[in-house]
């Protein structure tokens, strides 16, 4: 990934900053400036908690370029507790222990190595939460 592009995505990658739509209340991640629910402008930042659960997962044995160092790794669709879903690698967990519905939390890890300008890319990954049960924060 190019350095400028990597830099532009920092807030999302390191801090899970998305948006909240002032008109309809939709929580939006990644941020997109036009609310996907009501199409109103949406630019108010919202920091997501990083808590969620596994909606689906897959262990990758044949990675695309840039991810060879991590193979095999498990990538997942994680449903954040605020509603939106993200695609991210799972970490700190054996592939055969992953389950749909497993509660997870965001951590910051190395996501890509090398790339055309040698930038190491850090970003969000998700690991199983320390406690098997966790309560949703009230809004």
């Amino acid at each position, binding site marked *: *990934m190019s350095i400028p*592009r990597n830099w532009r*995505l920092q807030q*999302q990658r390191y801090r899970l900053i998305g948006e909240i739509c002032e008109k309809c209340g939709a929580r939006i991640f*990644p941020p997109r400036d036009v609310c*996907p629910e009501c199409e109103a402008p949406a630019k108010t930042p919202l920091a997501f908690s990083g808590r969620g659960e596994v*909606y*689906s*997962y*897959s*262990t*990758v*044995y*044949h*990675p*695309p*370029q*840039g*991810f*060879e160092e*991590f193979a095999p*790794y498990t*990538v*997942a*669709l994680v449903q954040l507790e605020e509603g*939106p*879903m*993200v*695609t*991210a*690698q799972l970490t700190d967990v054996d*592939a055969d222990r992953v389950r*749909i519905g497993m509660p997870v939390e965001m951590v910051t890890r190395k*996501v*890509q190595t090398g790339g055309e300008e040698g930038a190491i*890319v850090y*970003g969000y990954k998700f690991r199983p939460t320390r406690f098997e049960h966790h309560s949703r924060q009230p809004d």
Partner: protein
Amino acid sequence: MRDVAIIGVGQTKVGEHWDISLRHLALEALQAAMTDAGVARADALYVGNMLSGALDGQEHLGALVADFAGLRGIEAFKVEAACGSGAAALRMGYVAVAGELADIVVVVGVEKMTDKLGPEATSALAMAADGDYEAAQGASFVALNALLMQRYMYEYGYSHQDFAPFAVNAHKNGVNNPYAMFRFPVTTERFAKAKMICTPVNLLDSSPICDGAAAVVLAPADVAHALSAAPVRVAASAVGTDALAVHDRRDPMVLDGAVVSTRRAYEQAGVGPQDIDLFELHDAFSIMAALSLEAAGFADKGQGLRVALDGEIGLEGRIPVTTMGGLKARGHPVGATGMYQVVEVVQQLRGLAGANQVQDARIGMAQNIGGSGATVVTHILERME
């Protein structure tokens, strides 16, 4: 507005054509189609392709192919919608003729993927996904389909082995298609033992990386009979889109883009699923085949796989699919695939499918999908009596 017909088709074999360049592949298919149509000139050319820039260092395919084919000066440009590029190019050709802006239009889908090694082609394919939020996370295109398959199995209680009928059916039909890349049958036992790529997707759930080109010639329907012995009417041409990223879909288990595209197509053609005699669906991965059957109304939600398990997708079944091998066995040269699907429906409607002939085929549907479902282009073709 006026009705549009296909008056000629052409295709190359699908395979690893290290000896044939991108422009030569396009020319081969284009010339075959124009010869079949009996035309020497065209008013416009649309070229469907996804990866020429990434893998061949070549863009600007409209001008390149027009020039190379001796059609210098006509309207021409590349149309891109990831793996939906082929049918998207046909859509533009259809619009030009239907809108009375052109009379004879050539559409060619072309793709070369095998000049580079696997990892590079895989990375290029990831451009069909969200570069910032899917590909950048290490989710290859296979992985995205694997995520869908895993969830589908979980929600509806299927096993991985339940997906075998798609590969078995596709390969059975590929045997009799001289243009297909794979012309050997595949058993359920072989499916069970195939190499895992991204769990649960294995090698036989996935269509191959390959090269190929396919083309059609379009003309106004009211002059088609004068130009061709066996014209086919384009009864519907419809596009639907959906969120690019799987994680942004309303319900990842429903291809909303396909629901919209098929609904529009059925309305245009004045038909319903029960009228479709064959369905060239987008079986890039077996999970896509199951979801496509549901989105097009051939099965309820979660029952698309049941259609295959119940043996309804064969040539004599309720809804024959991948009748010439599909993406799995005929092959999936991504930007060309949409055109192969249409060429195959035409062959069926003309009664020229040989051992794979669907009896009394009158109405066929071809559906080409870009990415994991974000662009869906559906064409319904009807035999012209």
